[in-house]
């Protein structure tokens, strides 16, 4: 009984669905489309069809949002430290700058900044005790510091300020590396020594390239002013006085 009843309902529903074949007459449809739509009151357009279409506006807005977000991220990443989320962004920005720079002085400074970042990475790796990261950081540091030395080979008198910056920075790096060496366990000291050696090589190359008076074997022309006396006349007078005393 129940099945008969259900079948009846199903039949009714099926028959009802067949009533979808009922449609308006073609005459009515054409009348509606031609007459009614033509007479629909047209209000003032709320937007000008000559203005940018919707999709273009959406794309433009999306592009602007992405641009400002990107700039914001880059700006925020400038102070990122190794281990933070934005640190890779900072590295990427720096690498991009190095890639697109043609000036050797600027390239050297950027590589120097990169080497200082690598020292930060070394410090972080030592503090967390990650040997693999430490090794990677040291290798990266060596590469970067070699780049610095390579760029300084083409320096001339115009780069004296840059050279001073590099020399000062290398000095600070030496101090930092020595401090790190003092605190690391014995088994990690060889790795730090490698880094220090790379720094020393780079410093030597820089000094050779620019003729630092500390290095006697270097070219003394650039900083020869430091070896000359301040007042040659007075010096001669002193010599004369010393001679007279004799």
């Amino acid at each position: 009984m129940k099945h008969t009843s259900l079948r009846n309902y199903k039949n009714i529903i099926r028959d009802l669905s067949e009533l979808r074949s009922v449609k308006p007459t073609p005459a009515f449809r054409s009348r509606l489309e031609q007459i009614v739509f033509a007479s629909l009151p047209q209000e003032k357009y709320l937007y000008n069809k000559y203005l940018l279409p919707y999709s273009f506006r959406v794309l433009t807005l999306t592009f602007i949002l992405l641009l400002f977000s990107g700039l914001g991220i880059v700006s925020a990443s400038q102070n990122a430290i190794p281990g933070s989320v934005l640190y890779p962004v900072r590295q990427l920005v720096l690498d991009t700058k190095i890639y697109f720079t043609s000036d050797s002085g600027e390239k050297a400074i950027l590589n120097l900044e990169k080497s200082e970042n690598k020292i930060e990475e070394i410090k972080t790796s030592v503090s967390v005790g990650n040997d693999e990261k430490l090794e990677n950081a040291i290798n990266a540091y060596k590469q970067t510091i070699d780049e610095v030395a390579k760029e300084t080979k083409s320096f001339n008198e115009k780069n004296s300020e840059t050279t001073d910056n590099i020399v000062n920075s290398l000095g600070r790096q030496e101090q930092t590396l020595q401090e790190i060496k003092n605190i690391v366990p014995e088994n990690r000291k060889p790795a730090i020594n490698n880094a220090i050696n790379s720094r020393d090589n780079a410093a030597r190359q820089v000094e050779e390239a620019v003729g630092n008076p500390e290095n006697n074997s270097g070219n003394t022309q650039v900083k020869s002013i430091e070896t000359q006396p301040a007042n040659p006349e007075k010096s001669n007078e002193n010599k004369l006085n010393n001679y007279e005393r004799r």
Partner: protein
Amino acid sequence: MRHKFSIFPLYKKRVNDLISERLLVYKAKKKDKKAYAKLYLKHADSIYRYVFFRVNRDIQQAEDITQEVFFRAWGKIDSLRDEKVNFRAWIFRIAHNLVIDYYRGSKNETGLNENIPDHKHTEEKNLEKLDQELLLSAIEKLTHEQKEVIVMKFIEGFSVREISKVIKKKEIAVRAIQYRGLKKLKKLLK
């Protein structure tokens, strides 16, 4: 035997339809007649059918009311708050209100109308099956509410939720009306 089918194409089609309808509604709200015309083409047959069965298959009335539905919808389209509103349910609400106005105007409060006007035979020529004719006669004998729910549910394919939004009743009430309507149809068709 159950047939295997993938729901992904159906879902994808439904999503595409939804997106394109929302876009059309957005444009129609900006008084784009072409977009409105597309919406009309999509829903005209359904509206006509709904009104046709509600006015006891009176073709002239069905055409007049259908025409009025689309006219009124054009004027009121700004009242659609956002494009997420179901356009079909909204336009059927307009049709529902107009049919009620028609009943009030013609004082035809009950659906038990045994008098079938002559011009209906033109439409009946298209319905050859006798059982279909019996079904149509039986539908006319339902109450307004039952007719409305039965037509929207089983002919136009509305969900219970959509019907409840159109006739402003709770879903449980819609289900009850549907059940009573089907039961009455079954009794009438015996």
